[in-house]
């Protein structure tokens, strides 16, 4: 156990010093495997592990969903989504903030990237909220929190990665993510309602906004809605595998972009394709590194020692999941979602299997925990993205603005932990 803990410490120290997380875990993982199996076997295992992962058919779903998101992002559909949501919620107090949450949910459902959602919505929703004198904290907090919805609302890359690492059905994970995603949207809207009730000056009444072209916006989002239903409906109805759905989704997204006047020349295709390639390659570097590191952790016997520790503590499955969620929340303050999933899941998987925990339910819990990490200090990536996209905002103000939403996610997390049926209702 000591060697494994030293390994974790080495990864954290290297990552903190700026070494890329995939590289840090790969080099520490390799050193650990060499320690247990010798130089020749260590290097051989590294090469074979990487070839196996890079040629794993299940992993093809990742670049295809990323490509779908990038095409949707480049088709500039976010304005229509925001306007359509605004037309529906403009009568509510804090209507623009409610619209932002719903538009974030809609955009992230087809885009899949939390950071892209936060950056896009900052450009669209922040000026609108500032125009109506919304408090900067509420406006920026809503966008940063709304951006996190992409991680749980399917199709979600972290859910795919969890599915592969924990050997769970990706289609079931996507379906299991729908209700928690909707619950989060509702809890964010309830949070906004409470804030504007408590502090009415945070969201002054906006009156009737003539700039919203309701009919045009609604028409504009129909293809996206159709694509979302096609992709998820296809997976749910077992018509497509997740990889096939991702291929169909990417193709459909390209058609949407074409119909909106984008991707008309080779030059137009170059940026989204390169963007998707680089996102995929950087994610895979983390996957390679952390899976080699996971081999080292397995060789160290840590996961099996943990089984013994948990048995001695006599924890219930719920108690065990709460403990892991707390560790995940602490990790989320430093690591990104993929890092958390790949470092946490392999270590605790034998314990979870031993305790007979439903791994689909656990997957949603752990992804939700990693979602929290996107807005908690000191490394709340979504907060930094909002700040980077709107440099005039004060970082402290943005962090202060997301605090109510952190509690909102914690409430949903608690509900999901104690009422697993919310997650598993559609998959059983």
């Amino acid at each position, binding site marked *: 156990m000591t060697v494994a803990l030293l390994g974790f410490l080495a990864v954290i120290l290297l990552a903190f010093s700026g070494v890329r997380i995939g590289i840090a875990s790969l080099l520490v993982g390799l050193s650990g495997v060499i320690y247990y199996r010798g130089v020749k076997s260590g290097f051989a295992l590294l090469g074979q592990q990487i070839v196996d992962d*890079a040629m794993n058919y299940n992993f093809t779903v990742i670049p295809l969903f990323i490509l779908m998101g990038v095409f949707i992002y480049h088709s500039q559909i976010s304005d229509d989504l925001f306007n359509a949501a605004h037309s529906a919620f403009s009568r509510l107090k804090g209507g623009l903030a409610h619209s932002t949450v719903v538009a974030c949910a809609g955009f992230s459902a087809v885009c899949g990237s939390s950071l892209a959602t936060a950056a896009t919505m900052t450009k669209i929703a922040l000026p609108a909220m500032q125009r109506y004198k919304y408090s900067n904290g509420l406006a920026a907090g809503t966008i940063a929190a709304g951006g996190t919805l992409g991680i749980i609302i399917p199709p979600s890359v972290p859910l795919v990665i969890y599915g592969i690492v924990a050997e769970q059905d990706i289609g079931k994970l996507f379906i299991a993510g729908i209700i928690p995603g909707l619950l989060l949207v509702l809890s964010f809207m309830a949070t906004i309602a409470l804030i504007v009730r408590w502090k009415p000056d945070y969201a002054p009444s906006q009156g009737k906004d003539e700039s919203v072209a309701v009919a045009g916006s609604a028409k504009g989002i129909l293809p996206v809605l159709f694509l979302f239903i096609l992709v998820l409906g296809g997976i749910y109805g077992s018509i497509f595998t997740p990889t096939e759905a991702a291929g169909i989704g990417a193709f459909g997204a390209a058609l949407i972009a074409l119909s909106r006047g984008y991707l008309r020349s080779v030059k137009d295709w170059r940026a989204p394709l390169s963007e998707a*390639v680089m996102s995929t*390659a950087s994610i895979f570097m983390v996957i390679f590194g952390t899976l080699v590191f996971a081999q080292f952790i397995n060789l160290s016997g840590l996961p099996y020692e943990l089984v013994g520790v948990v048995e001695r503590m006599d924890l219930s499955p719920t108690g065990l999941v709460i403990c892991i969620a707390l560790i995940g929340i602490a990790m989320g303050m430093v690591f990104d979602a993929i*890092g958390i999933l790949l470092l946490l899941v392999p270590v605790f998987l034998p314990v979870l299997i031993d305790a007979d925990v439903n791994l689909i339910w656990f997957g949603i819990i752990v992804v939700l925990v990693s979602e929290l990490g996107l807005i908690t200090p000191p490394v709340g990536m979504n907060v930094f993205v909002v700040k980077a996209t709107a440099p005039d905002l004060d970082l402290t103000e943005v962090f202060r603005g997301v605090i109510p939403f952190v509690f909102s996610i914690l409430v949903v997390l608690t509900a999901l932990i104690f009422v697993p049926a919310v997650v598993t209702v559609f998959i059983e």
Partner: protein
Amino acid sequence: MKNEANEAGTLEAVEKSTFVRFSHNILEWFSSLSLLFMMLLTFADVIGRYFWNAPIFGATEVLQFLLIGMIFSGMGLVVLYDKHISVDIFSPAIGRRFPRLHAIYTDIFTFVGLGIVGVQLFRIGINDLERNVTTIVLELPRAAIILPVSIFCLLAALLQLWIIINTAVKKVAAP
């Protein structure tokens, strides 16, 4: 968060160096076309199966080849555009205090990591070549996939080395 100064510096250098510009273009075209072909192949396979009951033979295996090809050709682009995922908690402060030293320190780890992976992939490719290993469905020589992929990975390591050397002699802007 990426360091824009470093990225801008690297890209400026891409424009200036023939070797890097050539590598960049090759990697970008190969990886982009691989991804585009992945999308089209998956779509065509599904349509073929559902509408004509004729899935594309070996599509799954071709997708696996495209995936590994795209990942490792994309790795060089990740290096050039500094798109690696990193934990930026203390490193921005260290980077401000010792910009070039810190950039070289982090890049050396990336160079070593990519170099080790590239060499191991090359070894596996040579081994496959010697043992005449073929893929399961299409029965293609596996070395024909693994060896080019190892070259892409070694090229990414070489590009990282190029950035380290140029940072050291101040040709590329450090963070």
